[in-house]
């Protein structure tokens, strides 16, 4: 019997997708589907944007595919260069970046780019590379060096000012450092201090948020954001408006939601940034708690899979990189949902694979590609 054409192309087809981790691929496809359907409702059918979103999704998966085929070794080799380039661009931004809305974050190199975005991947790459280099001979001194590697770009980004991105980059680096073996006796005091700090803010919120109280190291608008989080009703028509309205959207969704395209909060324009940072409010209003459990389940599966891949990765570099990338996904999802549901201050963080926006999707695709690459090359390296 002659082979059918499909059978004939099957090996080729499989080899084409051989880099894809099937679990990860399915989870991401699920997230992308949720994102796309929510986007359709949130965007209110502007054809141009729909085409845009489809293109972005395709681009994201294409980048994912491409990166999944890149051996982790290559990433290891280029880590320093990418990091160096990122820092150089950040310095360039500080020197002659574009100013929009009072912040110097962008660089015009023919197209306008935001170098801090690069840092989100460059930071874990660089630190993973560094700890790989120092594997087995780690000393206290190494953590100090790692701290400096971390501090330089974070400082530059925070100065722009872009506290949200700075915190995310800092978190990405911190994950690597902690996973690399930062002794618990150094970590726990910080965790303790942080917890006490949060408690103090919750207890004394109204006092320190008084109008004439200035906070050290923090811009006034940042103080305002945190204070608004503590009590959104303190500024119902200003900064608090967004939080209150997105909470109303989520709360009014109930268990089953109002149904696709039926969200009044979203469709009557009460939700700000409803197809980007606040897209979760739209989803939540229309698909309810049931939808949210599924969505959070998908994210949890994504992270679990990422951590599993990292745990079985062949060397320290890939292990650290994989886990850090996974935890970045987690951080995005947690911070975004936390902020939209009024649990965390409002910082500009997209919901991975759900929020509209090309840059974020490509970055995320890159990250997912890294995970796939690590998984794919696990035996190749070991053997």
């Amino acid at each position: 019997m002659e082979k059918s054409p499909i059978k004939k192309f099957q090996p080729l087809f499989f080899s084409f997708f051989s880099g894809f981790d099937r679990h990860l691929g399915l989870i991401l496809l699920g997230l992308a589907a949720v994102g796309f359907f929510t986007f359709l409702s949130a965007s209110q059918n502007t054809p141009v944007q729909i085409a845009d979103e489809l293109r972005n999704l395709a681009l994201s998966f294409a980048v994912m595919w491409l990166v999944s085929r890149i051996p982790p070794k290559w990433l290891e080799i280029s880590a320093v260069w990418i990091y160096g380039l990122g820092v150089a661009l950040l310095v360039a931004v500080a020197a002659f970046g574009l100013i929009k809305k009072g912040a110097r974050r962008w660089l015009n190199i023919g197209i306008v780019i935001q170098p801090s975005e690069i840092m989100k991947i460059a930071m874990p790459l660089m630190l993973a590379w560094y700890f790989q280099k120092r594997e087995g001979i780690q000393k206290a001194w190494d953590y100090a060096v790692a701290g400096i590697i971390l501090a330089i770009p974070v400082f530059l980004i925070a100065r722009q000012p872009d506290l949200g991105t700075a915190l995310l980059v800092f978190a990405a680096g911190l994950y690597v450092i902690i996973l690399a073996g930062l002794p618990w006796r150094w970590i726990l005091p910080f965790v303790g201090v942080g917890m006490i700090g949060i408690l103090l803010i919750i207890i004394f919120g109204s006092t320190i948020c008084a109008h004439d109280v200035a906070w050290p190291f923090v811009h006034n608008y940042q103080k305002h954001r945190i204070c608004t989080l503590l009590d959104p009703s303190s500024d119902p028509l200003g900064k608090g408006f967004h939080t209150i309205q997105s909470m109303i959207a989520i709360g009014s969704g109930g268990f089953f939601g109002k149904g696709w395209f039926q969200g009044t909060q979203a469709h009557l324009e009460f939700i700000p940034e409803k197809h980007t940072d606040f897209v979760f409010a739209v989803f939540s209003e229309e698909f309810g708690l049931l939808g949210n459990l599924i969505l959070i389940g998908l994210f949890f599966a994504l992270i679990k899979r990422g951590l599993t891949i990292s745990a079985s990765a062949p060397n320290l570099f890939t292990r650290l990189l994989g886990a850090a990338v996974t935890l970045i996904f987690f951080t995005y999802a947690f911070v975004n949902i936390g902020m939209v549901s009024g649990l965390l201050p409002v910082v500009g963080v997209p919901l991975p694979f759900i929020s509209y926006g090309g840059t974020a999707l490509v970055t995320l695709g890159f990250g997912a590609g890294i995970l796939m690459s690590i998984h794919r090359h696990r035996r190749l390296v070991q053997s």
Partner: protein
Amino acid sequence: MVSFKKPNLDSFQERIHIATLFVTFCFLLLVTRLVWLQLISHSKYALLAESNRIALVPAPANRGLIIDRNGIVIGRNYSALTLDVNAEEVKGNVDQLINELSEIIDISPRDRRNFKRSLEDSRNMGTIPLRSMLNEAETARFMANRYRFPGVEIRARNFREYPYNELASHLVGYIGRVSQRDKERMQAEIENSKTDDPDALQASFLPGIQYVGKIGLEQSYETVLRGVPGYDQVEITAGGKPIRTLSSSPSVPGKNIVLSVDVKLQYLVEQLYGNFRGAFVAIEPETGDVLAFVSKPNFNPNDFVEGIDSVTWKELNDSPQKPLYNRPLKGIYPPGSTYKPFMALAALENKKRTPSQTISDPGYFDFGNHTFRDDKKGGHGIVDMQKSIVESCDTYYYMLARDMGVNMMHDFMKPFGFGQITGIDLEGEARGVLPSTDWKKNTFKKPEQQKWYEGETISLGIGQGYNSFTILQLAHAMANLANNGVVMKPHLVKAIEDPFTRNRVLTTPKESYRIDLSSENIDVIKKAMVEVNISGTSAAAFRGAGYVAGGKTGTAQVFSLNSKDYKHGATAEFLRDHALYIAFAPADKPTIVIAMVVENAGFGAQYAAPIARKALDYYIEGKWPREVPEWKRAP
């Protein structure tokens, strides 16, 4: 490839586990939060979302008509074109928008001010009128330029109109835009109606009301006239832009009020007063229906509806003629000799005099160190009760007052309504003064002022001294006398009419109380008053009347009404006496009583009685005086 150390991998695995735990904890936190929002607080947020998306747009109710007793409409509504601006479209550049609009449509500074005030109040909701009563040319110019002004539109709105302008302005009153004070009053209304009375529904709509009665019947019958505004439930965006109407609650038009006033009589009297100032009240004694309620000079209530312009306002407010002053309701005057019939009746009822008992009048009356003079030099000679009324003999009443004392007079006059609130259906009624020893004690501060001096009693007998009453009270008292002591509360509105079914519900044709009087005594007084019009002071005015009318003239010295103001501009005219007159007719079964004052006119017989005669001729016989222009129904 360096083989990795075992402990290192273990430590990494351990940290991955901790990370997994951390992630799980964080996600559980999120789930808890979402359960809190979407299950536990769901109803609260569902309600918030609902109130978010729905706005209530008030649809004003048609205001009830004001109709006279013969069906003539004196307060009505008409539809006119208004330039409306959608509040959402003008954020920030209000002035620029108005400037551009004023190139094609005349917009006064007052329009501009009103609009800005409304815009601030509206919280960017709904449409706000910028200019009302556009004429055809303006409408056309705007339509041609419409494309330049998104969010600006022309709409038909209802306006209040008083078709006879000045006619009966003090009793009709006017409506105006709701002021801060009105709002506070409405707020109190809302709070008072928390019980389950039928007005509670109406109270809940109060915030949507834009116009409210300011004075007159428009004010006192506000709740009847205004109806219940309807509301459209409109789905709106966060910016306040209406998307679609979800439901409508239709407005309930206000009820019509049917006046007891005969507007033609009112018109006639207003014309007869000419340039004289004064007050005139006619009452149907049997019912308490007020037939005419004149305050001269008057004003045009139409000027007030959309806010009065400052020039007209200044003119009205600063005029020494006080056109805004409701004289029959608030002006207090000494009744002068019109008080004498009541004094005579008091004497009979208290057995201080008999009709035939006489006095000898030398033309004056000495009391203590003071001489009280009679109008007639040399006196009226021998005077009995009828003569005392017909010729208006002062001495007779000086003596009578002395014999009765202030408190007996007070106690007799009080049930007639002198110095009392009559309870007419208008706000702001003046009480006046019916003196008594108690009154003086309670009114003055210093002990020597609180004491009643006998000498003060004497001039009370001729309606002077502390006596000061409104013309409404005088008319009311006359009605009570004409009605043989049956007291009917005077009222301007006799029925409330349903605008659809035209069913009328009578308001207050109820007897208040009855003064215990002997009919013989009443007849003595009435007979004497009839004689006044036959051979007495007003005989000239009533010569040839086709009916029998009783009356009494009075002349009061100027002292009460705005006496302070008058001192400044002390012209001779303002110092002249007020002419008063009271009447009832037909004498055997009175259908109308009159009390009136013509300010600073001089003698009552000369200036007041002739007006009363013509009013009675018209009311009883339908005769229209030649000098007064025909009544014309408004278009």
